[in-house]
């Protein structure tokens, strides 16, 4: 399993945890149903965006490693359309909160940011000065 797959799996776990918290909130606090519904829809769209981005990044990496000279993009338009679709579905069909949906769209990004900081800081903290050769 490469780094990206492991990272994505952790992002998926965090997003599912967030979704379960939102569903519990939806069940226990019916007066906040539009907010929790919007958060659920936004987080689901955010997870779909994260998977799409990971697929695209994997593809770009494979093409670069193979030395293929070809124009490739990261599919921003598709991800923007997924975000817009979530907003349209939330407001037109379910009457969910728009602000909740927009906040939910950043759940996977936030998880990625926190995990990224953690991953970048982890090895440097664990690695001693002896291993780096500073004391040799």
């Amino acid at each position, binding site marked *: 399993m490469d780094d990206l797959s492991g*990272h994505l799996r952790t992002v998926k776990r965090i997003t599912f945890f967030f979704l379960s918290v939102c569903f519990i909130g939806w069940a226990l606090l019916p007066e906040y149903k539009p907010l929790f519904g919007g958060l659920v829809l936004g987080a689901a769209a955010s997870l779909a965006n994260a998977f799409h981005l990971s697929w695209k990044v994997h593809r770009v990496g494979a093409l670069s490693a193979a030395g293929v000279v070809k124009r490739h993009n990261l599919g*921003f338009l598709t991800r923007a359309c997924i975000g817009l679709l979530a907003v349209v579905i939330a407001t037109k069909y379910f009457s969910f909160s728009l602000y909740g949906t*927009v906040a939910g*769209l950043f759940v996977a*990004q936030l998880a990625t940011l926190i995990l*990224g900081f953690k991953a970048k800081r982890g090895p440097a903290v664990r690695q001693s000065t002896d291993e780096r050769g500073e004391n040799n």
Partner: protein
Amino acid sequence: MGALALVAAAIVFGLGALGAGIGNGLIVGRTVEGISRQPELRGTLQTTMFIGVALVEALPVISLVLAFIFLGKA
């Protein structure tokens, strides 16, 4: 009010897309260069690229949604 909302939407999305375009270009360009130089580090570089692109693209998604909110209010 309608024309002003249209201008606000255009400015918000235009600036967001401009910033994201520059950021994405730098990230992808450097990552492709890194992978070409050291293909054995592909996994690490891809993860770093994923994190960077995910963060950079949060901005235009916010701006796109804001632009549509402005248009809806017009």
